[in-house]
């Protein structure tokens, strides 16, 4: 189907003027095609014999589609695959828009002036806050309204001074959002709960030795190898890793581990760390540090909260032995890790003091059942016995 104009995408074959076996010459009209502008005669550009009419009259085909097959003059009748009709030349892909030649942005005399957004200026004025005392989130960045809010919250506002209304309602809104998600989760997701104690002496000893070899700034937190094990164990039980949407479970090939992190002054968010099962412990530590400092610095924008495929809540720090989590919709499982405690533990017939951690799993009974959950926790336990493999 030839292109006859920039705005022609397809044409409807109306009529063949030739039949198989007919001789055709360059420039000869061989068919009629209907377009938005009316019927147009189609010429053939090669000499030869019509071999086969591929498209039936009355069918609409896009530009570039093969309409008929031709035998070159003297070519045998056997239906050798004739040269395909010339494909529409690929239109040159517009390269990326060129960076506009940077007009010499003038460096206005007062380049040193701090960059403060009007919204920030206005709030600072309302709260009687001196902008000099406010630090932008990123080094040398722009002081935003959020930065002013944080500074206001941090400064012990003298009693009687107007409470920072903006900051308060920001937290109220977040609490409302968490409440709604938890209510929905409890209402819609039939949870089942499993718990198991895991001997983590091997992994804690391994970590202590590992951190001795490292400088202070390169140290790994205890939760990091646990994160890796939680992610790797999912490979054996895919029914726990994915989302429930439009009435069906969609498993996820990737493991995006949501880390439950408490915010300063209350509130909780669980941003995802991508591909937690494939990252090295160092990368996981770096990702965890980045997301934790942004959450606790109040600078994590909701848009950055990419969707996890499963969540890990590590409440051991707060001294809780066993935490049974509520699943974050639309996920279908949540793993809870409790405090590491020293307990009497049977080892090859005798009793020894071992470091024990209680791991729990809350899962969506629409998607998986206790048997799967059990397999998962067993796999987690096994992985934690060979810490070297977690590297």
């Amino acid at each position, binding site marked *: 189907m030839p292109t006859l104009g920039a705005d022609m995408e397809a044409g409807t074959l109306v009529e063949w003027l030739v039949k198989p076996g007919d001789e055709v010459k360059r420039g000869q009209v061989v068919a009629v095609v209907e377009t938005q502008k009316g019927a147009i005669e189609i010429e053939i550009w090669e000499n030869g014999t019509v071999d086969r009419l591929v498209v039936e009259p009355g069918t609409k085909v896009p530009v570039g589609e093969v309409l008929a097959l031709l035998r070159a003059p003297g070519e045998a009748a056997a239906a050798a695959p004739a040269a395909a009709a010339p494909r529409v030349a690929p239109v040159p892909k517009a390269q990326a828009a060129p960076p506009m030649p940077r007009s010499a942005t003038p460096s206005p005399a007062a380049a040193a002036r701090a960059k403060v957004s009007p919204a920030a200026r206005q709030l600072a004025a309302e709260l009687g806050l001196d902008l000099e005392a406010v630090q932008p989130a990123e080094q040398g960045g722009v002081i935003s309204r959020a930065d002013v809010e*944080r500074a206001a*919250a*941090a400064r*012990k506002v003298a009693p009687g001074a107007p409470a920072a209304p903006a900051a308060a309602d920001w937290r109220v809104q977040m609490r409302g959002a968490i409440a709604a998600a938890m209510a929905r989760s409890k209402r819609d997701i039939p949870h089942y709960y499993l718990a198991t104690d895991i001997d983590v002496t091997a992994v804690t000893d391994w970590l*202590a030795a590992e*951190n*001795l070899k490292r400088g*202070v*700034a390169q*140290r790994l*937190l*205890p*939760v990091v190898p646990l994160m890796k094990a939680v992610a790797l164990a999912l490979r054996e039980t895919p029914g726990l890793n994915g989302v429930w949407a439009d009435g069906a479970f969609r498993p996820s090939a990737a493991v995006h581990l949501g880390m439950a*992190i*408490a915010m*300063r*002054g209350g509130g909780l968010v669980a941003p995802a760390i991508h591909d937690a099962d494939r990252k090295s412990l160092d990368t996981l530590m770096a990702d*965890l*540090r980045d997301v*934790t*400092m942004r959450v*606790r610095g109040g600078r994590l924008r909701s848009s950055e909260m990419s969707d996890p495929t499963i969540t890990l809540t590590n409440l051991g*720090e707060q001294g809780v032995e066993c935490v049974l989590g509520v699943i974050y919709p639309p996920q279908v499982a949540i793993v809870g890790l409790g405090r590491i405690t020293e307990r009497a533990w049977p080892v090859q017939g005798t009793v020894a003091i071992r470091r024990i951690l209680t791991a729990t799993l809350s899962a969506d009974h629409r998607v998986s059942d206790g048997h799967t959950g059990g397999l998962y926790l067993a796999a987690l336990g096994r992985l934690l016995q060979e810490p070297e493999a977690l590297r």
Partner: protein
Amino acid sequence: MSAPTRQDIRRAVLDTLCAIAPETDPAEIAPNRPLRDQVDLDSMDFLNVIIRLHETLGIDIPEADYAQLATLEGAVDYLARRCGAG
């Protein structure tokens, strides 16, 4: 560099806590109550405190000694020993 005085060390510890937890009011930190009961520090925050002290005071703080930094007074004693001896 002459060894920092106890006063310098106390100032360094309180500055570090305020940097990590801006809502902290240094004047209200009780010397002998556990810091983690008075300031909102999770494990990441605590590690960052350790790293900052390591950088400002130029001494290494092994994980095994974390327990000695549980209170303000304990931390100052420990760090003074390490710096003095350092």
